[in-house]
């Protein structure tokens, strides 16, 4: 009887130690779920969801504090991916946070720009180059189209230009879907 208790206790202690050790040795840094959510978010950093960028929104979703349908740039597809990841039902995009728009980049009218640097300070991804009293320019390849540079501009010289479809951006369309042949007789 005693031997059995000792054996069981011994096993419990050994397993406990092993678990305790591995909890320290294999500790996961950060929140892996937030990482996964962040990987799905479009990284526009526009703040339309009400958070200060994609990462804080991802963390809020991971904690269950925010809904999954607040990201307009991610669109319905993004909501679906988040729903798949989190194992919840996808829901329509929350229109109060804005509607999805075609992908665009900001464009500074260089004739009007006064070089005030306000847009540079607003850009979340440092995609505007320029200095005080010097003309500013958008680095189009790095612009996420977040529109955060529009409100601070005192002379309204920034416009959003949708990305036009050209040869390098062209994609093959889904082939015309097969239609079942419905003759007059069979439908009758």
């Amino acid at each position, binding site marked *: 009887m005693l031997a059995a208790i000792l054996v069981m206790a011994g096993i419990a202690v050994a397993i406990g130690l092993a678990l305790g050790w591995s909890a320290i040795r294999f500790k996961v840094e950060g929140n892996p779920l937030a990482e996964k959510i*962040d990987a799905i*978010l*479009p*990284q*526009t*950093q526009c703040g339309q969801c009400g958070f200060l*960028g*994609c*990462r804080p929104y991802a963390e809020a979703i991971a904690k269950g504090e925010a809904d999954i349908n607040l990201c307009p740039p991610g669109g319905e597809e993004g909501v679906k991916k988040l729903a798949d990841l989190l194992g919840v039902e996808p829901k329509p995009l929350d229109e109060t946070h804005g509607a999805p728009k075609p992908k665009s980049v900001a464009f500074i009218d260089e004739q009007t720009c006064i070089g005030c640097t306000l847009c540079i300070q607003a850009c*979340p*991804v*440092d*995609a505007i180059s320029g200095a005080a009293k010097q003309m500013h320019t958008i680095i189009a390849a*790095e612009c*996420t189209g977040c529109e955060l540079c529009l409100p601070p501009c005192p002379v309204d010289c920034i416009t959003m230009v949708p990305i036009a*479809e*050209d*040869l390098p951006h*062209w*994609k*093959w*369309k*889904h*082939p015309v879907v*097969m*239609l079942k*042949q419905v003759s007059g007789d069979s439908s009758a």
Partner: protein
Amino acid sequence: MSRELFKFKGGVHPPEHKAESNARPVRAAPLPKKLVIPLRQHIGSPAKPLVSVGDRVLKGQMIGEADGTISAAVHASSSGIVSAVDQQPVPHISGLPDLCISIETDGRDEWVEHRPLDYRALAPADLRIRLRDLGLAGLGGAVFPSAVKLDPGAAQHCPTLIINGGECEPWITCDDVLMRTRADEILQGVAIMRHLLGSTEILVGIEDNKPEAIAAMQAAAARMDFAAEIMVVPARYPGGGAKQMIQVLTGREVPSGKLSTDIGIQVFNVGTAYALARAVHHGEPLISRLVTVTGHVLRPQNFEVLIGTPMHALITLAGDRDGTTGVLMGGPMMGMPMPNLDVPVVKATNCILVQSAELFPPLPKALPCIRCTRCADACPAELQPQELFRFAKAGDFGRAQEYHLFDCIECGCCSYVCPSHIPLVDFYRYAKSEIWTREKDKRAADLARERHEFRQFRQEREKKEKAEKLAAKAQAKRAELAAAPDAGGAAPSEADAKKALIAAALARAQAKKAETAPKNTDHLPPGTQREIEEIEARRAKIRELARQPLESDEKP
């Protein structure tokens, strides 16, 4: 000659239709009034334009330079005046325009100065740059810049060089005719490839449906000072595909996701070898090529065509007929329908295939897949086309990739055998382009994340640095003041120290003000001083005047 040949799995044997066009001699297409030369004619970055509207260019002059490693130059195909550098329709299925240089030809066809290259004397790297600047790109269909392929890389040599004269696709005969008529120059080009790649084994694969080409190439090979084996391979589509040709000639398979050079084999089309010989032995850039014009035309034949010639001119030359239902660039298996016929002939144009309802009856309506797996039997890449179709249709691109979608060479065998007439290849192209777009979006998102995180890090750092700097400054000042009253004896209280700090700051500010007072008004000569006084007086008067009406306005 008794070398063992191997077989590739799958493949089909559609009606060849080669006899229509290969019997007539090659004819030079006349110089058109206007040439439209796209800057994107090869895989990789498009060429950068070097000319502007109004410039006079000569035949063979470089009008677009290679941009980056994987790129090639483009050249004026004839002499004339540049009439536009703008977006023009190009031979692409989308019908979207692309940047082109238009040249109004002057009919003189005046060559730019050009001279042969001594390829044995040039360093290989220099020679490759010259070839890139001569616009060489693979003429078999993929138009990959040849200079890049002629670099053996770290291995220093590529043991096996395969020259592809397969031309397996029905209707097309431009390589056949080229081999019949210009076999010597093709092999001269092969000699240059051999020199650059350091190849020891040279295999020329030609399908057995081209006996004249085989005879001509064998005769030419016998005249060469190196051994090139002319190998006759059984005609079976897509035996002219690079991977299939490698398998038939050597029995080796290119592993999935690898290049043929990884197993020591490089493949070039016969047309590329010919263009290389012209470039090196005559200094001529790639400004013309053989194009088969066939199908629903009166006189199907091969033309020597200047790059930039509009396609409709060639069809007129071959004799256009009523009842044309469409035009393909390329063959019936892999060709692309052309949205309009104003598009120019480019380096990739091997064939212009005019369709009619009799020759190419419209496909019956596609029916659901019955999973008969005939496509899997036909697939030369040994894929499971029915599964790929299922995943592509459902948008499950991850699974499609797991089933090696990117090993698909888009040869069209699966669509050809499909009893349900499903346009399978279209689905694979759609899936591939969706995957590429997603990868591009993902890269853009990763870049945005990285830049955003760095910005946050930078802002934090700046804030910290500023705070530290201020703290250090305050500390230094306090120490300085603490040291000063100590000389007087009494230790200052906290409030006194603060007062002293403020007093010191005030003194500093005053000193600074005095320092920055404009100095150019001191020690002036009397004349200037007088002028200044006069101006000041005028200013005072103006101010007075400006104030008066204001006051009078306010009074009533």
